[in-house]
């Protein structure tokens, strides 16, 4: 085309498009008269102009990125790579795409990470990728994402890892920030923060020991599972984005990389977590990870990273030069010990930092322990920063907030005005009155709630509920008792209702002081409804607010505010009780009404002691059990008519027997507690559970055992302990499916309890589903590495699965955690014997026998080591003794894999017959 012609076309085109569309034809008629081809050209251009719309209005960079995104989104989903069937794209980053895939061979879901194609062309890089991934795949730690395979197929380099369902710490932080107010509020409670950081530090400790430095610790690389377990992703893979040292043309390349990566608005992240040595482009070591974890910790506590800047360059400059802004300046409530840990982690000179992550871990754990003790044991008020006024009316709310502020600054004493002489009572007396009121108000609340739930249960299908700890708006220890007591009592009372699953106390109280969104808590716990509430005591006024939220619909179902005078308590009680009972008659059976109105104890101290007893007993350690027993006895002393306190004692006997006390000591006492509890309240489910245990473990009389279990569950369908014990019973009887179902039920009821989680693993183990048992027990240990029973059964599952070295490690851990338990030693001895370490096995055997001469050692444990050593005569001799001792271990006879080697012996059949375990 000649330039003149093109010039003409563009001129006519420009003139034409300036006109209204309906004017253009007339214009073209005139201007193109006799030049039909010109007109055609211009018209084609106008048509294109009309359609072009946003064409090329987006910069090419975005177009290419979008095309790339579209290509990635669709490229592999639904396709297969090797034996991996891709399901969907999970994410995409500088390191490549990550897909959710099904491993067709092993039938499990996995995450497959594909190396970006442009890396694949770089051979040395691919080699380093493979080496790095191979060494990372050797890491075996609960907080490290397990690498299943490093492979290559169809020209693609990939890593297959376990699939983690959950969110990244970054996402969690964003969510917490969005939910909390003011915007600067720290995301998450301190103990939660410590818990996360401790888990990451444990992962790092394991990796560093194996010589692997992560290099890229940041919130995007830390996954939080819904159940609170933390998993660190991409160990060592950060090396991939770096060139090999010899390829570094310019020493600042690493810094450039970060600079590029963190353009504003994109993922602003990496730069802020870099250590000073990384920012300078120097070689890094384990101490870089320590720094980065320090940044994460700092950010979790304060809500912002310590070194920031408008541009990545500014961030890097700040990391290298700016002094660390003191933690307590931004988070004044942070303990000084935390400040010290953070400063030591974020020392610019790495020689001044923690030299190993283990040292940091020790300090973090100690701090957490101190906080736990403060929170859980002493129940001191942990002041919550966001004081939500009770929404009774705006006027009242204002007053209360003002008073609340006064309480916080003025202290407990000034918060208790004695308004008139009549109400001048001692603190203790007032406390008691308050407790009485709370019980009354509470009873009203529960009954109303129960009526509502019951009425709705057919219509709305509400079959499960979590009662979250009521918010104590007084912020002092005494009132904390009121708010906790209210919550506890609601849980206890609702638990009595059949057809309603109530999340157990232990699990519900994990959310204490953690004012997150009730809907998401409900989803986490898998319940349909969540009850939240607040308690405020002001002199002789008591204010209680409660809301019931439908998790699925995310709406409030019911809400009630109670505003009462202490003095009017009795009248109000009568009034409300009548009104409610009228309503209830329509909805609840007489039995259920009666149970709802029931109050376990009027004595707050007894209740407190009972809770402490439960807390300690659930630790499963000798020290914990001794304390637990002591607290239960004190609870009984404080209120001899407190039926549940007797069941607390029963819990002690059930847990301690075989580990620390003999069956002959424990079982008669267990029977006694059950009978006492039933004498006080024959409708309690708990004592029937105890009776079932006595029949099963001690009397070896199966039909009554089963009957009592069923009765316990019938009376209290939400009693987790009865479900797992019944499940265990069923498994020893060979009824695996039903047994596991009961164990799972317990775990659903109390999903965050170490006990129910371990027992589920134990049930899977006895049902000989070793893979599942291992997974379950590893998950349990992710919650708390110190729970010896989980190590015990994880070891047993490994051993039965043929993984002796792993088993021995677990048994050693169990012994470390609780050396008083003979079972831990006998397991280790048995595993030694199987590994050919007969001398070690014999040594353990000698120790056990020596101990048994001085005190209680279950004969069964000795039999086990003999069985491992192949000494059948001795094994049977000790089993006979276990039989005579009424050892509960004998109920394992049929199911315990330790005894498999004895099955063919006639003496074993004889034992089975005597135990009434023959088919």
């Amino acid at each position, binding site marked *: 085309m000649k330039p003149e012609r093109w010039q003409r076309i563009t001129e006519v085109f420009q003139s034409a498009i300036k006109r209204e569309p309906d004017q253009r034809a007339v214009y073209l008629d005139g201007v193109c008269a006799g030049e039909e081809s010109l007109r055609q050209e211009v018209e084609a251009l106008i048509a294109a*102009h009309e359609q072009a719309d946003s064409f090329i209005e987006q910069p090419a960079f975005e177009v290419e990125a979008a095309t790339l995104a579209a290509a990635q989104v669709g490229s592999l989903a639904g396709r297969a790579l090797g034996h991996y069937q891709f399901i969907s794209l999970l994410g*995409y980053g500088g390191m490549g795409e990550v897909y959710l895939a099904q491993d067709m061979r092993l039938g499990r879901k996995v995450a497959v990470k594909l190396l970006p194609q442009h890396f694949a062309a770089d051979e040395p890089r691919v080699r380093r990728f493979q080496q790095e991934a191979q060494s990372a795949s050797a890491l075996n730690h609960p907080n490290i994402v397990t690498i299943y395979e490093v492979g290559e197929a169809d020209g693609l380099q990939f890593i297959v890892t376990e699939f983690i369902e959950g969110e990244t710490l970054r996402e969690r932080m964003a969510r917490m920030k969005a939910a909390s107010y003011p915007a600067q509020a720290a995301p998450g409670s301190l103990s939660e923060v410590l818990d996360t950081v401790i888990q990451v530090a444990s992962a790092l400790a394991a990796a560093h020991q194996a010589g692997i430095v992560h290099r890229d610790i940041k919130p995007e690389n830390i996954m939080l599972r819904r159940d609170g377990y933390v998993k660190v992703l991409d160990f060592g893979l950060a090396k991939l984005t770096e060139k090999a040292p010899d390829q570094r043309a310019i020493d600042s390349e690493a810094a450039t990389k970060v600079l590029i990566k963190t353009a504003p*608005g994109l993922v602003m992240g990496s730069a802020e977590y870099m250590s000073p040595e990384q920012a300078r482009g120097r070689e890094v070591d384990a101490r870089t990870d320590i720094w980065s974890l320090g940044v994460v910790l700092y950010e979790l506590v304060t809500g912002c990273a310590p070194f920031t800047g408008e541009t990545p360059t500014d961030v890097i400059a700040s990391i290298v030069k700016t002094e660390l802004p003191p933690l307590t300046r931004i988070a004044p409530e942070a303990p000084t010990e935390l400040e010290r840990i953070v400063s030591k982690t974020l020392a610019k000179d790495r020689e001044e930092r923690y030299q190993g992550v283990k040292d940091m871990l020790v300090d973090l754990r100690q701090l957490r322990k101190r906080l736990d003790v403060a929170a859980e044991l002493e129940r001191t008020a942990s002041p919550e920063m966001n004081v939500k006024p009770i929404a009774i009316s705006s006027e009242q709310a204002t007053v209360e907030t003002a008073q609340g502020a006064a309480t916080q600054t003025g202290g407990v004493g000034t918060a208790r005005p004695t308004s008139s002489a009549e109400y001048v009572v001692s603190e203790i007396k007032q406390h008691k009155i308050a407790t009485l009121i709370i019980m009354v108000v509470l009873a009203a609340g529960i009954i109303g709630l129960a009526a509502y739930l019951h009425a709705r249960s057919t219509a709305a299908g509400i079959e499960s509920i979590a009662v979250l700890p009521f918010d104590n708006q007084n912020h002092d220890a005494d009132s904390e008792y009121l708010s906790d007591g209210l919550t506890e009592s609601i849980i206890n009372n609702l638990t009595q209702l059949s057809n309603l699953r109530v999340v157990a106390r232990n699990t519900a109280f994990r959310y204490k002081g953690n004012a997150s969104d009730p809907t998401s808590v409900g989803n986490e716990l898998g319940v349909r409804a969540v009850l939240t509430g607040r308690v405020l005591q002001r002199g002789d006024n008591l204010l209680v607010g409660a809301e019931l939220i439908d998790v699925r619909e995310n709406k409030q179902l019911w809400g009630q505010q109670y505003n009462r005078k202490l003095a009017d308590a009795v009248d109000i009680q009568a009034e409300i009780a009548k009104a409610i009972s009228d309503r209830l008659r329509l909805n609840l059976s007489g039995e259920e009404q009666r149970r709802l109105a029931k109050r376990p104890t009027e004595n707050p101290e007894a209740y407190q002691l009972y809770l402490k007893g439960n807390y300690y007993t659930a630790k499963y350690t000798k020290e914990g059990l001794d304390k637990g027993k002591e607290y239960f006895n004190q609870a009984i002393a404080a209120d001899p008519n407190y039926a549940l306190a007797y069941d607390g004692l029963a819990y002690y006997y059930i847990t301690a027997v075989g580990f620390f006390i003999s069956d002959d000591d424990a079982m008669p006492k267990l029977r006694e507690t059950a009978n006492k509890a039933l004498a006080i309240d024959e409708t309690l489910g708990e004592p029937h559970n105890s009776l079932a245990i006595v029949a099963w473990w001690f009397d070896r009389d199966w039909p009554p055992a089963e009957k009592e279990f069923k009765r316990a569950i019938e009376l209290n369908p939400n009693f987790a302990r009865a479900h797992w014990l019944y499940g265990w019973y069923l498994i020893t009887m060979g009824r695996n499916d039903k047994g596991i179902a009961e164990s799972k039920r317990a775990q659903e009821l109390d999903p965050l309890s170490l006990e129910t989680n371990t027992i589920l693993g134990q049930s899977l183990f006895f049902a000989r589903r070793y893979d599942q048992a291992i997974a379950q027990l590893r998950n349990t240990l992710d919650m708390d590495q110190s729970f010896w029973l989980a190590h015990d059964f994880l070891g047993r599952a490994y051993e039965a699965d043929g993984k002796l070295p792993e088993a021995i490690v677990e048994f050693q851990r169990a012994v470390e955690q609780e050396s008083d338990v003979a079972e831990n030693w006998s397991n280790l001895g048995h595993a030694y014997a199987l590994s050919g370490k007969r001398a070690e096995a014999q040594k353990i055997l000698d120790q056990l026998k020596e101990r048994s001469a001085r005190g209680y050692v279950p004969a069964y444990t000795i039999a086990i080591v003999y069985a491992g050593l192949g000494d059948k005569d001795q094994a049977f001799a000790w089993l006979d003794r276990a039989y005579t001792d009424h050892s509960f271990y004998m109920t394992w006879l049929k199911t315990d894999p330790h005894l498999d080697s004895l099955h063919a012996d006639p003496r074993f059949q004889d034992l089975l017959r005597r135990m009434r375990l023959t088919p």
Partner: protein
Amino acid sequence: MTTPSTQVTQLLVEWSNGNQAALDKLTPLVYEELHRLAHHYMSRERGGHTLQTTALINEAYLRLIDQAQVRWQNRAHFFAVSAQVMRHILVDHARKRHNAKRGGDARRVSLAEAAVVAKERTGDVIAIDEALKRLAVLDPRKSQVVELRFFGGLTIEETAEVLKVSPITVRREWTTAKAWLYKAVTSTE
């Protein structure tokens, strides 16, 4: 100490002087940024971001250079060089992507699918590049306007500054070039 930005600046200068090796060093930086943006598109918080993206991209790659330290003949020269670099790298990226697709058996991703992600009608970078070469023969200045705006990500005003013409002229050139390119691209597709 050689700062990262002067390094990038240096690379750009070297490339504009005809040093191919400089481009090789720049390319991975741009690629990573591309992948990052692609990830951004795919991430869940995608909704409503398109408006800011343009500004963001401008920034993203202007950030490659610390303006204060640049000793360019002038700002315009820098923009012009950057646009050329980006064009080269992006087209190269698109080619590699296409080739990889033809090599493997992955299905071809249509523009429509790309548009689903971008939420706007997008063009194929390679097709536009080829059409732009033809436009350069016919009308070099219009081609340059497109290079600066589409590949360089410049605004009308910045483009005017580079070309030393008025923004009105740029707007007019842009409208015509866009129509012509659209026609060229859609008729060959």
